[in-house]
Structure formats: structure tokens, C-alpha cells
């Protein structure tokens, strides 16, 4: 199994709350990604980073924000959660060469009531 971790695994929260989803990897990978995925559906890239202090928005517009202060850490924050944010969030990482395999975390299943 890849050394990439996500916490929490499950989160149920009320509308309007601020949340941070954590993602950490111990492989020293420069590239990290956040995907949003409804159960059994396709992956949507929402954020990615090619290294420290580098963050970019993905293909799917998202109200979340990310930061990359340390190589191993790539947290995602929602300032005010809404029911439309209910989904699964997958974090992944890969080496800087873009052709390398992506390693995925176990995901965080978020439910906003």
C-alpha cells in the first residue's frame, strides 16, 4: 500500500461549518492532487500542486481552497460547508515527472447536512 494518508475518513457536519480535510504523504512526492468523486462515479480534479507554494485549480470549479507549505502536506479547506459539497474527496501524489504513477489515499467521505 502507498504511504498516503487522509483524515478524517468520514465526516458529517452541519451547513456553514468550516472544515479542513488533511492529506499527507511520506514518499517525498512533489506533485499532489485533490479529486472529488461521487460514489461509483468519475473523478473530477479540483486542485493540484507541483511543489511547495505551488497550487492550481483543476478542471472542476470548487469553492474549496488548498495550501502547500510542506512537501508532504496538502490540506483542503471549505470555509462554509454546504449540502452540495457532500461527496468523496480523494488525495493523490506522484513524483515530479508527470508520467509517473499516481498514488491515492483512502479518501474522505464528507456529508454536509
Amino acid at each position: 500500500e502507498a504511504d498516503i494518508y487522509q483524515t478524517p475518513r468520514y465526516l458529517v457536519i452541519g451547513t456553514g461549518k468550516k472544515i479542513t480535510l488533511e492529506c499527507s504523504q511520506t514518499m517525498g512526492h512533489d506533485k499532489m492532487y485533490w479529486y472529488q468523486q461521487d460514489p461509483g462515479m468519475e473523478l473530477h480534479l479540483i486542485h493540484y500542486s507541483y511543489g511547495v507554494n505551488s497550487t492550481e485549480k483543476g478542471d472542476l470549479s470548487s469553492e474549496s481552497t488548498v495550501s502547500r507549505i510542506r512537501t508532504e502536506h496538502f490540506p483542503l479547506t471549505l470555509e462554509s460547508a454546504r449540502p452540495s459539497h457532500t461527496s468523496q474527496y480523494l488525495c493523490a501524489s506522484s513524483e515530479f515527472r508527470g508520467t509517473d504513477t499516481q498514488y491515492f489515499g483512502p479518501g474522505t467521505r464528507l456529508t454536509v447536512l
Partner: protein
Amino acid sequence: AQTVTQSQPEMSVQEAETVTLSCTYDTSESDYYLFWYKQPPSRQMILVIRQEAYKQQNATENRFSVNFQKAAKSFSLKISDSQLGDAAMYFCAYIYRDDKIIFGKGTRLHILP
């Protein structure tokens, strides 16, 4: 723009039989990488197999093999001797250099006992 198409949203196969999942892609590049990822129910996404476009030989990994047809832009996955543990969503993916990886919409594979 590059695209990845998986035309079979869902497939079923009898245990111990062979099944082939289809994937086509569109690109004007010549040197790229293709992947098949597996996402079991409620479990982590993992790499199944990877193919470098410059290699003519089809990649194999135990019971998993690909049929890579570069001119036809086709990259199918064959699973031999299907097992219950093969039940999952399978995603085909493409990447060119440091561009973002592009995933297909996935094929859900059911294994019938």
C-alpha cells in the same frame, strides 16, 4: 484536447472467465503513458497496469494484460481467470509529460460467482 473514453459503464463476468474492458483516447502526441486503475468498493484506488506509448510490447501484470493499439488509440484491459476480488470500478487514464492526468469515466465490473 486529450480525451479518454470508456464506453462500457458496467460489465459482468462469470468467475474464472476472461473479460476485456475497453478504453479509447484522443491525442496528437506520440510519447505518453496510459494506465488502468482499480477502485474496489470503499477501498483505495490502486494502479493495475501501466503502458509507455513508445513500447510496442503490451504490458502484463499477472492475470492483467493490455492490448495497446497505438494507431487506433485503443488501450483495452484483459482480466484472465476473473476472481471475486476483481470486482471494482476500473478507470483508464492518460498522461503526457507534466500535463494533468486525464481519467475516463470508469467501468464497473461485477464478478458473478
